[in-house]
Structures are given as structure tokens and as C-alpha cells.
């Protein structure tokens, strides 16, 4: 794909993102007309409250959660040279979810709203710290993934334990709602709590980008052409941890976006893993915000959870990618 086509594709993704966000603000059960909704952006009327404080933050939350998952996935795939890697595979998502679940269980979330994001991000960082420590920064991709599988299972067991011990059905219902992944009822305050971590994570991942491109040749060749492998690894892992923790805190555990978004983005950048990060973020944002809009339009009494919808589409896509992948990083 030529440079001009790539630029056009980038603009197209940005325009689609913007359109989905606007559409999400115009459509909803309150039955506002498009004109009422649009004027709501600029007025303090009831429609203003609905558009600015309910629809827009929800749509933005879905977009941001998808974008950071997409960017994390692109960074992890570049680092591990494996199109099936993502924060979910490495156990970072599961650990972040465990952190958030613990915050809910111990009632910290009820006392301080920032306890959930903080716990999710801290646990995501702890997961990457464990990954780094166990391998002293020198784990082969295959072993790193196996450690991630272990971390996922362990976090899953602890989450199940917490749910098992839930003192009352209300906390259990809170946990289940949150674990399924949802962006309903998110406010700008929720977004502002996690946005700095998302931004910091994206910056770290972008600093790792040239090294990720070099890693296409394997670690020894990448080091020999001038890439700083240790720095690249640290930046990519910390960047992915910050973005994943923040995304999980905002929207719960949503799988597969981190695998599917980079897969769709890569053809736009000649398969270059370093340059796939931003396009993967745009694609991820479009996927989740469009999925959330779709959910809101379904005529069910009980709203479908975003994480459930993402998995219903994402899991078959994951299997498709897995079946098409010829070479797995050794």
C-alpha cells in the first residue's frame, strides 16, 4: 500500500471514529430527535444532560477502552513477534481484573471512586513486574506466553475465590456486571481518572515502536542493527500494562480487541509492527464504540454487556487468525 493510500486510510479511520461517537450521541432510548440531541451539546436542558453526561462519556469510554486495548495488543505482538499475543494472553488483563475485583470486594470502590482504576493499574503493573522478574527481562516469547497463561489462570482462580466468598448477592452482582465488561453509566470523571495512564502508556509504546520494527528480524539481528532490546522490551511491557490496566478499570475485562484490532490494522502499514500501534488504536476504538452503539440499539430488556458482545464477535475472529497463522514465534 502506497504512502498516500495509507494516509487516506488513517483519515478514514479517524472520520469513522468521529462519526460513531457522534452517532452514539444522537441515538438512544430517550427518543431525542437529532436536532434536539445536537443542540443538547450547547444547552443546559434535559437533552443537554442526556447527550453530554450520559451518551458522550459512554461512547468515549468505549472508544478509549478499545483504542488502548488495540494499541496494547499491537505493542505486545510486536514484542513477542506473535500475532496471537495480547495483554489477555500475557495475563495482564486478568491481573488488572483481579485488582479491580479486590477493590470492589473490600468495599474500597464504594469509599473512593479512584480505588478501582488504581487497583487495576497497580495489578497490571504487578503482572508485568512478575513477567520481567521471572525472566530477568530475557524470557523467550514462548516462555513469556506460558508464564502469561499461568498468571491468567492464577488470577482467574483468585477472582473465582473472591466471588465464592462474596458476603452478599449485591457485591456478587457488582462483580459479575463489572467482569463482563461494560461502559454503561460511565462519567467524564471515570474517564479523567484513567486518561493520564492511557496517554502515558501510549507514549511508552510509541517510544518502543522503532525497536519493535527491528525485532521483526529476531532478537539477535535486531540488537545487531542497533536496536536497544532491553529498553524496547521495558517500554513495550510497561506501556501495554498502563493501557491495559486503565482500559480494564474503565470498561472491565474485554477480550479479543487486542488481537483483532492489530490484525486488521497491519495491512495498512505493510505489516510493520512498529507502525501498527496508532492504526491498531484507531481500529480498536472504532470496534468497541461501534459494538457499544450496536448493543444500545438491540431491543432486549436487559442490555447485552459490551464484553459479551466483543467476545461473541472476537472469539471466532481469534480462531480465524489462529488458523491462518503459519509461523508462531519460537
Amino acid at each position, binding site marked *: 500500500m502506497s504512502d498516500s493510500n495509507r494516509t487516506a486510510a488513517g483519515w478514514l479511520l479517524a472520520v469513522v471514529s468521529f462519526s460513531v461517537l457522534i452517532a452514539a450521541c444522537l441515538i438512544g432510548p430517550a427518543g431525542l430527535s437529532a436536532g434536539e440531541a445536537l443542540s443538547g451539546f450547547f444547552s443546559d436542558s434535559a437533552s443537554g444532560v442526556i447527550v453530554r453526561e450520559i451518551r458522550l462519556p459512554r461512547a468515549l469510554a468505549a472508544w478509549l477502552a478499545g483504542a488502548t486495548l488495540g494499541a496494547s495488543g499491537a505493542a505486545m505482538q510486536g514484542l513477542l*513477534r506473535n500475532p496471537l499475543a495480547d495483554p489477555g494472553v500475557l495475563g495482564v488483563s486478568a491481573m488488572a481484573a483481579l485488582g479491580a475485583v479486590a477493590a470492589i470486594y473490600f468495599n474500597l470502590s464504594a469509599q473512593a471512586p479512584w480505588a478501582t482504576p488504581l487497583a487495576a493499574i497497580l495489578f497490571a503493573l504487578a503482572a508485568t513486574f512478575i513477567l520481567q522478574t521471572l525472566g530477568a527481562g530475557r524470557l523467550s516469547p514462548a516462555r513469556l506466553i506460558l508464564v502469561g497463561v499461568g498468571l491468567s489462570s492464577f488470577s482467574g482462580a483468585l477472582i473465582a475465590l473472591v466471588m465464592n466468598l462474596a458476603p452478599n448477592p449485591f457485591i456478587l452482582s457488582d462483580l459479575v456486571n463489572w467482569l463482563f465488561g461494560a461502559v454503561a453509566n460511565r462519567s467524564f470523571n471515570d474517564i479523567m481518572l484513567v486518561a493520564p495512564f492511557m496517554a502515558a502508556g501510549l507514549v511508552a509504546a510509541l517510544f518502543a515502536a*522503532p525497536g519493535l*520494527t*527491528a*525485532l*521483526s*528480524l*529476531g532478537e*539477535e*539481528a535486531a*540488537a*545487531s*542493527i*542497533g*536496536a*536497544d532490546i532491553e529498553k524496547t522490551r521495558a517500554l513495550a511491557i510497561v506501556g501495554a500494562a498502563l493501557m491495559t490496566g486503565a482500559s480494564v478499570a474503565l470498561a472491565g475485562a474485554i477480550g479479543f480487541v487486542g488481537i483483532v484490532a492489530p490484525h486488521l490494522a*497491519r495491512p495498512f502499514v*505493510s*505489516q*510493520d*509492527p*512498529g*507502525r501498527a500501534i496508532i492504526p491498531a488504536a484507531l481500529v480498536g476504538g472504532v470496534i468497541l464504540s461501534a459494538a457499544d452503539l450496536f448493543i444500545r440499539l438491540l431491543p432486549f430488556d436487559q442490555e447485552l454487556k459490551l464484553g459479551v458482545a466483543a467476545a461473541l464477535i472476537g472469539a471466532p475472529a481469534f480462531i480465524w487468525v489462529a488458523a491462518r497463522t*503459519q*509461523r508462531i*514465534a*519460537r
Partner: protein
Amino acid sequence: MIDFSVKNLTVERKGAALLRNFNFTAGAGEFIGVVGPNGAGKSTLLRALAGVISSDGAVTLGGAPVNLMTPRERARKIAYLPQSREIHWAMTAEAVVSLGRFAYGAPHRLAAVDAAAVEAALAAADCGSFRDRDASTLSGGELARIHLARALAAETPIIIADEPTAALDLKHAIAIVDLLNRKAAAGGLAIVALHDLDLARRFCTRIIVLNAGELVADAAPEAALTDQVAREVFEVARDARGWRLADQ
């Protein structure tokens, strides 16, 4: 001028020495063949020389320790061709060769001088006919040439290559060794692990023989690759029809 010096180079992993007290100096115009049986420490030596693994001892270039250079500084002086020819992701052959200019700037937007180096390398390694192909569809010989072109594109005074002829037919093997020989003759330094003793004898200016992590011989080809070395190190002998096992 190239002044490449190795003093007391030792590489240990898990308490076992893969390479013990290795010393040599090399300069411009030399094409050094590193030979030895499997497990002799050839790859370990080349990795340590290229600075991609940690080692004890001193590897210096022009008096400057290689392990104190930044990765980019080192990459502008020493090109390294690992044995593995892995290319992840479906990149074009040309994109792989362009990565040879990584140490000179952004990998995506090549300056004119970088683009010229990539062109020259593609031509030198005879990769022009498949430069636009997805690297995952290339044959073993094409892949070997692409990786060689990637190393050549860096335009470094020193090239270190780990069995660049492995799994190649004779014509392609000779073409690659001949190319490295010409790079050395033009004022460069090539240090190349080879399994084919005949190729080494014909094209190298100097041979280093390794066995079990130790230096056995370091001399001109005829002096290094003696019948005794063949028998004791490689456990083979030569008769009128070619190589055979030494004890038969």
C-alpha cells in the same frame, strides 16, 4: 584502518565455559574463516564479537571497547548475520534490507544516502528480482541473500556472519563467500563461520580453528587446515574421492 582486538574473551553460561580465554587481532583486508565441529563455540564466538551477548574479556575496535558502545554506534561499525534467518511478519524483501540502515535513522523514511546503500546492497547480493516479494515466500537461497544484503546495507567496516552458506546449493554458497571475500579485499574485515572446509580453504585469508571452546589453530588456510587438524578436531580424513571418517 581497522584495528579489531580480542583479549581473554571468555563466555560462560550456567557455570560452563562455552569459550575460554580467546585472543586474536585482526585488521583490514582479512577474511577470517571460523571453523570447528558442532558445539565448538563458533556461534558463541561470533555473537560475543558482534556484542549481542555478554562476555568477559575485552573486544575492542580502534581501542574502544565494543560493549561500551551504544547499540547504534556498534551497528554502524559491525554488521552481524546470525545463523537464524527468521523474518516475522510478512514484510517485503526490500523492507528487510532497509532495516540494515536502522542505526542511521528512522527505518521507514530512508534518506537518499540510506536508499542508495539499500540499492547497492540489493544489487551486490543479487536480490533485485525478488525485492518486492513477501519475505515469507522466499526460498532458502533467496532468504540468505536478503539477510546478507541487510548486513551489507549497513556499510560497516566489519561483517560477522554465522554460517551464511548453510543449506545453500554450491553455486549460491560460493557466490556468498566470494562476495564476502571481495568486501574484505576492498578494505573490510569479514569474520565468517563456515562448515565447508573446502570453501574456507579457497576463499579465506586466515582460518581460526575452534574445538570445545578453545583455539586450536589460527593461521593461513594451508597451515591451519592440516591433515592432523582434520583428523584430531573434525575426526575426518581425505582420500582421493573426498572426505571420510578418520578411523575407517
